[in-house]
């Protein structure tokens, strides 16, 4: 939602309403559980959706992946993962020790696939949630999602293996993808959102530089597209304006300052993809 807003869409959400308003008459929005989105997208009930790769795998949904957005709940750019965990003092030391045991998980299909890959036969029980609480009493092990590991540590569980790294994907229905109008609409929206998620949004940097130091400064910003260089009337100064990625600004700005730039201003006013 935050990223959609940053990408320039106004979204209005009122409590309990699952159909937020968006200021684009060509779009209808629905707030749905991430678990269900892949299913609806694959069936063509939704044209486009944002969902975790875990639920796409779990439901074996047939979709078109438009972008890997790579943001999880707490941290941007750090993948959440489904892990196999057992109590700290469990005799189970590796996945091989799970032969014939019981594993609780919200992602039954993903877990079964994982066990198959490892050549281990075990019973996978569907868990509605709070899986961390289940071992050792209700299950021998769990396959649960973790980002920071805090919840696992709090329940005295240790990680044995990573089952699946999950990232957030922007997915489209194969039906919508074949419709040129819808496809273009999806691609435009996806590009804006993706830019912000990746911190690729462009930022504009302006600075003043004396004629004498202009050459050095142009060397520093070489590779950031063509800078606009304008002579300032009346004095031997130039006005420099160029775009770079948001992330690069924090390295470029000190370098520019050291090279003699004055009045350095960074703004996002001129958003151009």
């Amino acid at each position, binding site marked *: 939602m935050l990223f959609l807003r940053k990408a320039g869409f106004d979204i209005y959400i009122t409590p309990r309403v699952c159909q937020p308003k968006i200021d684009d008459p060509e779009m209808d929005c629905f707030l749905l559980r991430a678990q269900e989105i892949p299913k609806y997208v694959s069936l063509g009930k939704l044209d486009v959706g944002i969902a975790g790769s875990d639920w796409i795998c779990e439901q074996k949904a047939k979709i078109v992946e438009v972008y890997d957005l790579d943001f999880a709940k707490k*941290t*941007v*750019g750090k993948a959440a993962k489904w892990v196999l965990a057992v109590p700290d003092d469990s005799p189970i030391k590796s996945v091989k020790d799970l032969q014939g045991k019981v594993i609780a998980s919200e992602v039954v299909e993903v877990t079964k696939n994982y066990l198959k890959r490892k050549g281990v036969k075990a019973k996978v029980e569907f868990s509605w949630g709070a899986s961390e609480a289940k071992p050792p009493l209700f299950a021998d092990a769990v396959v649960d999602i973790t980002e*920071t590991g*805090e919840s696992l540590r709090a329940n005295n569980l240790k990680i044995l293996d990573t089952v699946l790294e999950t990232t957030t994907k922007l997915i489209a229905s194969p039906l919508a993808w074949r419709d040129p109008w819808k496809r273009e609409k999806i691609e435009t929206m996806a590009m804006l959102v993706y830019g912000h998620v990746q911190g690729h949004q462009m*930022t504009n940097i*302006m600075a*003043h530089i004396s004629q004498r130091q202009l050459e050095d400064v142009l060397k520093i910003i070489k590779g950031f597209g063509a800078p606009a260089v*304008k002579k*300032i*009337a*009346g*004095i031997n*100064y130039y*006005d420099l*304006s160029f775009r770079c990625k*948001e*992330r690069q*600004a*924090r390295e470029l*700005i*000190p370098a520019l*300052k050291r090279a003699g*730039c*004055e*009045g*350095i*201003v*960074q*703004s*996002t*006013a001129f958003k151009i993809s």
Partner: protein
Amino acid sequence: MPTKNKKNILRLGIPARALRFQTIDLLELAGFTVNVSASGHKITIDDPEIECFFSKTQELAEWVENGMLDVAIVQKARLIEQGIKAKEISEFKYGNGIWDLTRVVVAVPCDSKFKTLKDLQGQEVFSRLPNLTKKFFEEQRVKVKVTRVTYPSETKAEMFDKPTVDFTNTGNTLREHDLRVLAVIMETSPRMIMNNETFQDKWKREKAENLAMLLKGARLAKDMVGLMLHVSNGLMVDVLKILPAMKKPTVTQLRGENVFDVLTVIDKKQAREVVPRLKKIGATDIVEFPLEKVII
């Protein structure tokens, strides 16, 4: 335990209490992604060359002095209070809940008989900054007994009906405890300080100065706005008179017309006066836009 002086790593102390949220804000505005652990004690940023560390500023100041940390953001009044020997590399204008200076004040209960500092002669004064307080009263030639108290001092001043010396930002806490300001001892602001020894390390010094530059740039950008407008040739002289610029506004002629595009950066508070004036004399397409960083 951190080993002292790690090579090519800048160890940065961040205030954990009063200056906490605004410091985090500034780090984010400076272009860093900041992560605070669930307990609130651990802070990490997405620069592998900077190791962040939360603590009270009293401790941060001492640890920069003795080299446990390379740099820290610390309240100026604390540096004076503790007689910290370190390099001051930058100062920032913000306080707890405000983007303005913090004041260190002598406050007294609203209904007390104390009207001037002289009235405090012979009194016991609570203080969170006892050294600074003693020096202040000596200079004022008022004899008082200074008693060190810890945060918060306002509750104690109210309950025991005593004058107190403490930091104030919005004045809300003083009001809550029925206290009024009798005198301002000093205005204080956060400073970035660096250990004297690691300041000699070229890499660390440059890293710290770059960080300070970005934080300062982000802070300044909060006070300023960008302004774009179209001005016909005949109006140019008048418009340039109205516009105060950091250097000179950038003026570009629009293609095929006798109209110019003027681009400049001005103080936010000036903007609310300048924009209507520009409009009035005939400037068109005036766009005011927010800035992310301003480095003078």
